Each structure stands twice: as structure tokens, then as C-alpha cells.
């Protein structure tokens, strides 16, 4: 053996004993001087994802944009509400570090956009995570037990389908008064969990008939253990993909609500309300173009990452390139 450290990739079959495929004689492999490296499905997925160029570009973009938003206190040259009436509606320039110009009361627009990213990013991430968890639990129960839970859920989604989401959102936002960031997050979660629940339900409906579920039941595993220990890992792929895309969706929807004045109210800047604010000054292009551009970049990056995750986690699904 010239290469004693060559590793063998072993795609794990169904049964794993301590992470190593059953039936492989460790001794014989060691005797050949080969190192055995077991790779789980997750490590395969990770490798596929890391090799996906567009996904890596998207991930890099997201880290930069969301990083700036998260560290707004340190990155932004000014605070979002620092008024300077001597320097109103200034076009973007490097003078005084107003790279994005200033708004109608002289606030530095770059800082406002960065704080706007922070708001939008919080809304997007919280909505995606909470609605994924909620949709996962609900969809799992509906798909596993079927029966009335399932029926109820399908009727609820039917109802939601008859009214366009945005219209219903506007009505509910008007009802709850909108305004605060957390009210908006709450409303969005209320709408975003249904598609994820539907996906999980669909997968669960087919998985519950699989042999390994039957086997788990035969050895006496409880419903809860079967659902979350055995079946759940097989649904995580689509849920992660859907959850990622939901980040972009939630950010755009929040921007839409804020744009129409039913979303997050000033002085807290969000990307949507910044674009809306710029509408009053069509000649000061930077006021609406720049925050909108950031929105577009976020959506593109999230979509790239989502596509990469889909290719990595859900290889059976045929790729439809955008």
C-alpha cells in the first residue's frame, strides 16, 4: 500500500452501528492499511452544498449584508435618527461619509439603510424559524395521525387560498394596528407556517407507511419517538429549503406592508418603509433606489442559497434552474 491514509467513502445503508455501516468488517479494512471514514447523509449534503458556486456567492452576500445589519451599532457611521438640518437631501458623496446621501431632515441614509437591514433581517429570520418549527410540528401531527387534525388543517389552508395572502395580510395588519416590529412578525408567522405544514404533512403521509416506521413500532417505540426521532430527519431537507426561501419572502412581505403604511411605523427604519419614504421625492433617486437595491440583493442571495440547499439536501428533486 503506497497510500496508507486513503479513505473509502461509504454511503451509509439503512442500518448504522455507531455510525459505521453494519456488515463491514473493520478488521479486514484495517488490515489492508485503509482508514475507514463513515460519511453520513448530512456530510454528503454539506459537501454538495459547499461545492455549489452560486450558493457560496449567495451565502457570502448574505453574511456581508446581514452581518452589517446585525452589527449596525458598530458599522453605521451615524445613528438612524441623528438629524442634521444643515445637510438636507444631500446626494450620495464621500463628504462626511454620506455614501448613500441624506434624507429630508438630514439623517445619514447609509446608517438608516443599515438599521433598516437589521429590522428586516430580524423579521425575516424570526418568521422563518418560528413558522418552520410550528409548521413542522403541526404538519407532523396532521400527517401522522391523519383524522380530524388533518381535515381541519386542510380546510384552514383552503380558506386561506380563497383570499389573496397580501389582501388578508393588509386587513389583519389594519386590525391589529400594525406598527410594532413584533406585531408584524406575529402576523407573518400566522401566514407562513401553512405552506411548511403542508409540505411536512405530505412527506409524513408517505413516510408513515414505510417499513422502518413499522419496524420502530414493532420494537415498541412510542408515537412521539417515531415521529421526531425516525421520521423527522427525513423531512428536514424540504423544511430547511422552504425555511430559507421563507426568509426572503417574509422580508419582501414586510417591506410590502411597510410600503403601504400598514407595517413597521417610523422612527424604526425598515427597508420597505425607507423605499416608501423616498416616494415623496422622485427626483432624489437615492432615497428609494438604494434601500430597494439592498432588498433585491437579499432576495437574490437567499434564492441562491435556497437553490444550493435544495440541490444538496433533496437530490431527487429535478433541478429547475431559475
Amino acid at each position, binding site marked *: 500500500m503506497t497510500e496508507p491514509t486513503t479513505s473509502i467513502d461509504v454511503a451509509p445503508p439503512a442500518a448504522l452501528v455507531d455510525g459505521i455501516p453494519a456488515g463491514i468488517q473493520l478488521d479486514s479494512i484495517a488490515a489492508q492499511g485503509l482508514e475507514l471514514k463513515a460519511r453520513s447523509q448530512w456530510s454528503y449534503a454539506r459537501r454538495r452544498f459547499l461545492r455549489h458556486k452560486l450558493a457560496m456567492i449567495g451565502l457570502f452576500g448574505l453574511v456581508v449584508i446581514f452581518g452589517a445589519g446585525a452589527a449596525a451599532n458598530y458599522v453605521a457611521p451615524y445613528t438612524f435618527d441623528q438629524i442634521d438640518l444643515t445637510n438636507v437631501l444631500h446626494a450620495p458623496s464621500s463628504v462626511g461619509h454620506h455614501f448613500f446621501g441624506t434624507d429630508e431632515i438630514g439623517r445619514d441614509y447609509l446608517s438608516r439603510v443599515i438599521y433598516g437591514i437589521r429590522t428586516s433581517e430580524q423579521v425575516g429570520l424570526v418568521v422563518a424559524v418560528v413558522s418552520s418549527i410550528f409548521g413542522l410540528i403541526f404538519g407532523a401531527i396532521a400527517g401522522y395521525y391523519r383524522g380530524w387534525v388533518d381535515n381541519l388543517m386542510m380546510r384552514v389552508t383552503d380558506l386561506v387560498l380563497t383570499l389573496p395572502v397580501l389582501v388578508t395580510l393588509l386587513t389583519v395588519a389594519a386590525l391589529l394596528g400594525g406598527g410594532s416590529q413584533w406585531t408584524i412578525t406575529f402576523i407573518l408567522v400566522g401566514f407562513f407556517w401553512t405552506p411548511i405544514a403542508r409540505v411536512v404533512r405530505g412527506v409524513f403521509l408517505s413516510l408513515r407507511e414505510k417499513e422502518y416506521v413499522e419496524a420502530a413500532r414493532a420494537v415498541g417505540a412510542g408515537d412521539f419517538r417515531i415521529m421526531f426521532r425516525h421520521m423527522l430527519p427525513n423531512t428536514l431537507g424540504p423544511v430547511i429549503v422552504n425555511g430559507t426561501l421563507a426568509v426572503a419572502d417574509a422580508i419582501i412581505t414586510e417591506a410590502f406592508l411597510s410600503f403601504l403604511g400598514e407595517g413597521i411605523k417610523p422612527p424604526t427604519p425598515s427597508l420597505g418603509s425607507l423605499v416608501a419614504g423616498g416616494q415623496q421625492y422622485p*427626483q432624489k433617486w437615492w432615497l428609494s433606489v438604494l434601500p*430597494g437595491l439592498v432588498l433585491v440583493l437579499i432576495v437574490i442571495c437567499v434564492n441562491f442559497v435556497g437553490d444550493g440547499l435544495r440541490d444538496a439536501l433533496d437530490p431527487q428533486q429535478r433541478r429547475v434552474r431559475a
Partner: protein
Amino acid sequence: MVSYITRRILYSIPVLVASSFISFVFVSLAGDPLANLRANPRTNSPQILNHLKHVYHLDQSVFVRYWYWVESVFTQKLGVSLLTSQPIWPDITRALGHTLQIVLLAQVIALFLGVAVGIFSAIRQYSVFDYTFTTVSFLGYAMPTFWLALILQIIFVDIYLKWHVRIFYTSGLNSGVISSTWSLDRLQHIALPVITLTVVSFALYSRYMRASMLDVINSDYVRTARAKGLPERLVIFRHVFRNALIPIVTVSALQFGALLGGAIVTETIFTLDGMGYYFLNRLQASDVYAVMAYLMIVAISVITFNLIADVLYGFLDPRIRYD
């Protein structure tokens, strides 16, 4: 087929009733229709307010109020606005007409462009043409509508202010005098909203068309058609194209149904008197009956076009059976 359609229509009635009740509760809780009157206590004494409350059934439970609304929908053609005492029907049909004009134009243009681009992208997969248009449609898909509309508005306002050339108007439906539906003045007014909606729908259609063309091109019967020596043009247009259109028919029917509710954002930005603009306006004034009339028209159009999409799908693809 007839029994399928009948069943679907019957099934949609309880859904409509339930969704109308839920939205009625939401909308009537959302705002106070008497807020404007209340703001002026001098002319509107508590007695007057109480009287109005009684007349408009605002002192009743939400169930009773819902029933009054249902009654007015059937006896008074979608009812009379409680706020302005104007009948809703003429207002909402006028708005629907304007929305219809914009949506029809945008959909026809987007369908033609989207289908054509989708076909050529699929035939010349990974060519420069393909890459260019997949990027364009990806951008169109990622762009929020309001941002696109605002940029168009900014550009044309700037052009007018700099060179005093009026190419397209950036707000309203006509300048001054009311112009007829297809006059040049009207077209100059609706051009920008039409472009906005076209870009959004084009992104959708070209992606779908490309994907479904590629799907069909790689199928066995296309290989057979090529193998028996058919000219490539015939293969593409007789065998591939026709089958690839099926998903587009469904998608465009759904899109059309959804857009009849008006492109809320687009109409708001260009201050167009369409459905979406009407809805937002009435919602902010808490005009319950008007908002409900809008929601019902939208729900019915969505349900109808969903049904049309499903029926067309079965008609175009005999492999699908409804039982």
C-alpha cells in the same frame, strides 16, 4: 366533467360563506367607521352618534351585522356604503374595468414574450440568449414590485423635468378631460403600470415555459419523433411546444384570477382608480361594506379561475382524469 364542475362549484359555496364571515369579522374589528364623525364633537353630539350607531347596526353583535350585510349584498347589488351612503356597485365596476384593461394588456404581452423567450431558451439551452434571459427573469422575480414601479416613475418624472418631453404619464388615468378607454392619452397613462405588471408576469412565464419545454424535449416520444426523421422545426412546434404549453395555461389562469384583485402596489404608486387602489382606500377609511364587496369579488374570481385552470388542464391533458 359536468358533475366535476358542479361539485366544485357547490363545494366552493361553503368556503365562500366561511371566508366572507371571517373577513367580515376582521374588517369590522379593524377600524371605527364613525371615527371621522367622532373627531368633531361639536357638530356630532353623542346623541347623533348613538343614533347613527343604531341606524348602521353598530350596536349589534357581529353576527347580526354580518346578516345585515348579507341581506344588503343580495337586495342592493353588493350594498350601499355605510360611510358615504353611495351605492358600491357603480364604483367597484368602474374600478374593475380599469384593472381589467391594465391586467389584460400586461398578461397578453407577458404571455407572448414569456412563451417565445421560454421556447428559444430551451432550444438553445446554455447559449448566450438563454443565460441573458434566465438572468433577466431571475432579476424580475427577485425585484419587489413596488421598487420596480417606483424606479419607472422616477425615470419618467426625471425625463419630463429635464427635457420637457411627456412620454408616459406617471399617475392617474387621464389628463383633465375623461378620455375613452383606448385613446392615446389613456395608453400613455397606463403604460408604466402595464410595463410593471408585464415584467413581473414575464419573469414567471418565461421560467415556467423554459422548464416545461426542457421537460418535454427530453421525453421519449420526442426522441421517437426525431428518430423517424421529422424536421426539427416540426418536432419543436408540433410535438414539444403544444405539450409544453399545458403548465403555462394553468399558471396564467391562476395569475389572471389573482391579478383581477388589482395590483395593489402598482395601482397605489401610479394612483390608478383600479380594484387594488379602491380596496386600500376603503380599508383605510374602514368602509366595511366596500371592503367586503371587494373581498368577495376577489374570492369569486380566484375560485373561478382556479376552476378554469383545473378544467383546462384536464381538457388539454387527457391523462388527467377527474372523478
